[in-house]
């Protein structure tokens, strides 16, 4: 009997270990699994490498995780936001490392990690400082940079609906990195707004097939990062 449901977010993240690489879904607040991130802060794992497009806002969610000092390295495309200095301050003080990756290359590296492709070539960043030290190769008269796959020990994701097998549906642009991160992590942990019996999702519309999902936690009313930030919330 396939059983992927965990009762609490704390249970679902309990084995994330020091030094783990953790992919966290979301583009800004859209798709950010705040409850899972807060559970990870409570859990205490440190020296993490975190993959996310951004670095969070205010003092909740991803920004709070970074602020807790548990993140040794961020892999992202855009570590600046209008309303957070958490990452900026730690980065300037040399307390957190940054691997800056163009957004499309970040997405493709994650997809490659999940699809068993160890490396690929892309035009993106050719002739820029972000290609420095990388292998450049010419195909049909144009230069391309070689990029490596990105994998993770864990992925923390948020979705709209999950069924018992772990088939997932997302909400609008909250989909973003989550489907590819689900494929690239050894253990994919998903907080879902709705938990459904197998068969309640039309198989033609499944976005993430259950094979990529290992743990599901029901969080029926997830918090919105922007509202927490507007309220001046600080986690923990």
């Amino acid at each position, binding site marked *: 009997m396939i059983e992927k449901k965990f009762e609490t977010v704390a249970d679902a993240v309990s084995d994330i270990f020091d030094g783990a690489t953790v992919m966290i879904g979301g583009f800004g607040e859209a798709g950010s699994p705040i409850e899972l991130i807060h559970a990870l802060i409570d859990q205490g794992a440190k020296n993490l490498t975190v993959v996310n497009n951004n670095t969070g806002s205010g003092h909740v969610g991803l920004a709070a995780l970074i602020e807790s000092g548990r993140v040794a390295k961020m892999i992202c495309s855009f570590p600046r936001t209008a309303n957070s200095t958490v990452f900026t301050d730690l980065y300037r003080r040399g307390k957190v490392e940054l691997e800056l990756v163009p957004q499309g290359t970040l997405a493709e590296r994650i997809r490659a990690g999940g*699809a*068993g492709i160890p490396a690929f070539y892309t035009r993106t960043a050719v002739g820029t400082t972000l290609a420095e030290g990388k292998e450049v190769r010419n195909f049909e008269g144009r230069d391309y940079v070689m990029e490596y796959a990105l994998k993770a020990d864990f992925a923390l994701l948020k979705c709209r609906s999950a069924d018992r*097998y772990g088939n997932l549906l997302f909400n609008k642009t909250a989909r973003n990195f989550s489907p590819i991160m689900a494929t690239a992590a050894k253990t994919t942990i998903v907080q879902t707004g709705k938990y459904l019996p197998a068969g309640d999702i039309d*198989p033609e519309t499944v976005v993430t097939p259950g*094979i*990529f999902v290992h743990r599901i936690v029901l969080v029926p009313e997830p918090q919105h990062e922007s509202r927490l930030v507007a309220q001046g919330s600080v986690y923990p």
Partner: protein
Amino acid sequence: MNNAAERATVGWDREQMAQRAALDIPDGAYVNLGIGIPEKIARYVPDGREVIYHTENGLLGMGPTPKPGEEDPDLVNAGKKQITAIPGAAFFHHADSFGMIRGGHIDICVLGAMQVSETGDLANWSTGAADAIPAVGGAMDLVAGVETIYVLTQHCTKEGEPKLVRSCSFPLTGQAVVKRIYTDLAVIDVTPQGLRVIELAPGIDFEYVQQRTGCNLIPA
């Protein structure tokens, strides 16, 4: 050596071979079954185990053969046989499907074989004959991407030639990929020391299997 008539009465028959392999499919596994005898395994997985079947042409949650009149030419398996989809299934395109395979997400794949070497090399796609039309399908992707590759095959060819050999004479599908072999005579693990017989079919002894094998076997 043995012939077709003998094979029918000695060792496991095809159904029993599938039955034996099915015992090793654990609850919750994501499984891809090759065309032919491996397809039969799904029928024999013990009650209480929930197994999700992948077919590389774009479906997780393959169900049994449709009832007459309920066939859909748009719902087929990798062997192009008409199938069904279980509640909780998912459809996807070919690149996503082979991403599952190549990315190591399928737990177990059971394939047929023309030859398996003592180091786990598999040959199951071509005789290499000059006039053969080469056709590989998804076999090379499966053996390269799936961690646990089982082989389900008659121990010998119809002509009585051993299929388990020191080194494959047919073109390879993959090198050192097979973990375990289920034949009509025995269950055999591929180990760093060579092929180890871990179980014999009823009435079959080790020597009988060794005589029909093209490389040294290790007793259990």
